[in-house]
């Protein structure tokens, strides 16, 4: 399904075709794909490098079972075919961040085959759903890091990252706009974080995207694509799609042709530029790695992987909707796995779903945004939040007072019922006290009462406000409303 996003050129409108290859580090494992060195981010250079990672003479790779398990779980979460039989191949090329002179990858027989990701282009529009195909997923080694700014004539090589496990997730060229690319990447990231295989931390480099873009006139065959490598944020990916598509349209409309090449994105200038062409860079001479046998997965292994999967975003969203939560709220609540699990705990603590969803989205998120916190930072536990919501639901406090209590909870970390007790914030439904306040207000505002009876209905709100003020906000609003109506006639 091609979207209606078009680049408007001189010669007409152009469709954009996008495919993404996402490299996601398997952050769930302590050690590397083929060596026992640590994978922790940010260590001193070359301290997380074994002799195998340094490709010393005579060193050999031994695969990490947990890396395979995480890749399989990820494939299952993407509804993909898991290949019982797969194989490792060597991708041969020379670069200073590649100590072996080859990368152990999987070309011919990847671990995971075709799958699918559902994206929602507009949170508020249930019908803006699109399926984006996954072509395949394979596991491979990450490369080391090269640094060029430390020395005038030398580059420095740090192999800490060399050999860390990567999942390469290749999409089908099913995206047709920057928005779709962004939605896909966000959804993919969410799923990876739900599964727990990759933390999706693009700033730290645990997830990066190669963006393949081509353009064509509607109805024509695919155009030549370019590949912009190592884009490390969703925003940049979307910018690359837009910029590269426009650049290609300009080239084509001025009579040029698109060269199939690798490009790099420069976020400061907002442009992609061609990588200085490495001649023969593309003859990788893939062949099966003779140090490794084919990988064969047992049914038991696959069953355990499947059983270990948590409820995934789409399923959770649908379950929340089934509880009466609005599609928009359900969507917002399930984007981040920590939020979704926090919300699940809130429901488990007895909160009413619709009320809880509204409160989390409006109040809790609002507070977190103001404070610059994430849900993991919040001092409020789901149990305490449930308690607060219950106090409102059973009429102990009003909604207005609840907001106050919430602020106090954020400041002090105290439990809501204690706050209400200590500060005497319970609302009253005592009709006697309320009647007295209503009478006093109506008596003090006789002129307005006359206007109200004369047709100015809006003044009702004024009376409610005055009564609430007189009762220091502790009157049950429902009862106030009822008593006012009764007395105003």
């Amino acid at each position: 399904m091609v979207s209606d996003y078009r680049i408007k050129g001189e010669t007409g409108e152009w469709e954009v075709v996008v495919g993404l290859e996402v490299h996601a580090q398997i952050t769930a494992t302590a050690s590397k794909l083929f060596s026992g060195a640590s994978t922790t981010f940010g260590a001193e250079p070359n301290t997380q490098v074994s002799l195998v990672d340094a490709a010393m003479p005579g060193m050999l790779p031994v695969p990490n079972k947990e890396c395979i398990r995480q890749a399989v779980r990820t494939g299952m979460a993407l509804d993909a075919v898991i290949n019982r039989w797969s194989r490792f191949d060597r991708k041969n090329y020379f670069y200073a961040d590649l100590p072996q002179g080859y990368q152990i990858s999987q070309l011919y027989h990847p671990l995971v085959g075709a799958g699918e990701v559902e994206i929602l282009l507009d949170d508020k529009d249930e019908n803006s759903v699109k399926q984006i195909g996954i072509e395949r997923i394979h596991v491979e080694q990450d490369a080391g890091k090269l640094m060029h700014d430390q020395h005038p004539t030398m580059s420095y090589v740090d192999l800490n990252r060399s050999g860390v496990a990567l999942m390469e997730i290749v999409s089908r060229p099913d995206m047709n706009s920057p928005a779709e690319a962004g939605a896909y990447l966000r959804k993919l990231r969410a799923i990876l974080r739900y599964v727990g295989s990759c933390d999706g931390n693009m700033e730290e480099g645990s997830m990066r995207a190669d963006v393949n873009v081509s353009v064509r006139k509607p109805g024509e065959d695919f155009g030549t694509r370019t590949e912009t490598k190592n884009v490390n944020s969703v925003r940049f990916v979307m910018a690359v799609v837009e910029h590269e598509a426009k650049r290609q349209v300009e080239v084509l409309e001025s009579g040029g042709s698109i060269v199939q090449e690798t490009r790099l994105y420069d976020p400061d200038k907002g442009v992609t530029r061609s990588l200085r062409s490495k001649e023969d860079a593309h003859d990788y001479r893939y062949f099966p790695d003779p140090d490794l046998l084919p990988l064969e997965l047992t049914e038991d292994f696959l069953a355990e992987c499947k059983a270990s999967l948590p409820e995934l975003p789409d399923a959770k969203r649908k379950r929340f909707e089934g509880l009466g939560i609005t599609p928009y709220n359900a969507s917002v609540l399930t984007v981040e796995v920590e939020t979704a699990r926090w919300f699940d705990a809130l429901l488990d603590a007895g909160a009413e779903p619709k009320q809880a969803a509204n409160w989390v989205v409006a109040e809790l998120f609002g507070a977190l945004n103001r404070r610059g916190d994430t849900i993991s930072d919040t001092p409020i536990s789901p149990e305490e939040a449930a308690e607060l919501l219950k106090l409102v639901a059973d009429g102990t406090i009003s909604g207005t007072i609840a907001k106050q209590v919430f602020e106090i909870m954020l400041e002090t970390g105290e439990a809501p019922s204690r706050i209400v007790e200590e500060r005497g914030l319970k609302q009253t439904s005592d009709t006697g006290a309320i009647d007295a306040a209503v009478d006093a207000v109506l008596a003090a505002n006789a002129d307005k009462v006359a206007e109200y009876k004369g047709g100015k209905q809006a003044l009702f709100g004024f009376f409610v406000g005055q009564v609430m003020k007189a009762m220091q906000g502790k009157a049950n609003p429902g009862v106030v409303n009822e008593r006012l109506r009764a007395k105003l006639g």
Partner: protein
Amino acid sequence: MSELTSKTIAELRDGIGGGDFSAREVAEAYNAAVAAGRPLNAYTVETPDLALAAADAADEARAAGALKPLSGVPLGIKDLFATEGVDTTAGSNILKGFKPPYESTVSGKLKAAGAGMLGKLNMDEFAMGSSNETSAYGPVISPWKRSDGGNAALTPGGSSGGSAAAVAAGLAAGVTGTDTGGSIRQPAAFTGICGIKPTYGRCSRWGIVAFASSLDQAGPMARTVRDCAILLEVMAGFDPKDATSLDVPVPRWEAGLSSGLKGKRVGIPTEYRIDGVPAEIDALWEQGVEWLRDAGAEPVKISLPHTAHALPTYYIIAPAEASSNLARYDGVRYGLRKEGVKSLDDMYAATRAAGFGAEVKRRIMIGTYVLSAGFYEAYFTKAQKVRTLIKRDFAEAFKECDIILTPTAPSAAFGLGEKMSDPLAMYLNDVFAVPASLAGLPAMSVPGGLDGQGVPLGLHLIGRELDEQGVLNAALAIEERAGFTARPEKWW
């Protein structure tokens, strides 16, 4: 040769254990022999102190009643095995001065069993060669001379040329070699000693400089079949650091030695009778059949139809794997680095041009070519299919027989320089040895006799997967009947 240096490993073990002589005496005798043997150029590095240290430890162990299987046995280690703190060059300039901070699993096991290291043994560069003439450290000269009085320097074979020469000349009690396409067996045949390549995966490849990963195997070379069994028992065993290592127990090969072959069928493959092989070698082969018959075995004609395609198959697969395995020699992290270059790529190209010899370059180039776009299917994939057929040939043949007997090499040792002008002529040296390598089967060379010029000839036994015992036993049967006692006359 001193008396001590002409003893077998079994004799040394029993002698030290029985107190007939001390381990120190043995080590000193060998150190002296090594020093005196320099004209052969068998050793690239001598480590007499390490040999003495192991000897002293052995003598202490003896006093404490805690002798190990190889206590006090001085060995030479092929320079393809990483030895911690001791130069490991793989016969190449590109690793000149490289001292690994680690020990290979196999050499580590030998040392843990009490063996002492006399030094590192010269070899063809990166194990690519059949005459030890491609070494960056000069050729090894065989201790054997032809009886024609011409005094021509002969090759000890290769790639484990230094290893073979050392055993034959009494410069080590035993040695390690590696065999990818015959590099243990052919030099063993050329120098009149025993050498066995075990089943692929029996010995760990961890810490052995890789040439062709699906073919490389470590193995012992020594004077007798029993000595080979003793060494192999220590060298073999599952290693979790090598994903191709076989997780199977190591049999007691020495204890299981038996030269009675009643009930065994010996396969004689028709395709191994080829034109151009000297009549003496075919004659020795027939003699070998008779010896085995005498031991109780029944000779059976078998066919290994794809034999003629084995060498070309090998010379596609081995260079291809090597071209990838040798990519790490790039001047970045260890080894030679050419300075004064403008860019990283220039550094790679200049370093590798300066560091690799002609044969290694040739094989890297061939290997790169057969893997490259457009040729991969026609060459590499095709060769792997033929390899499947070769393996199948053996599986079929082993339904009709239990052990296969062939000559080891198509000629006796030739003179240095005789075959260097044509790489193909050199490759043909391994025509009998390569098929067993491709199939991963255990295979051994045992001395059969001398040719008309007084130069050794070997007989070659191939067994089923994991049947090293069958191979050793048949070799023992030949050893007992061949009566090969000839030693090279000391000219150095």
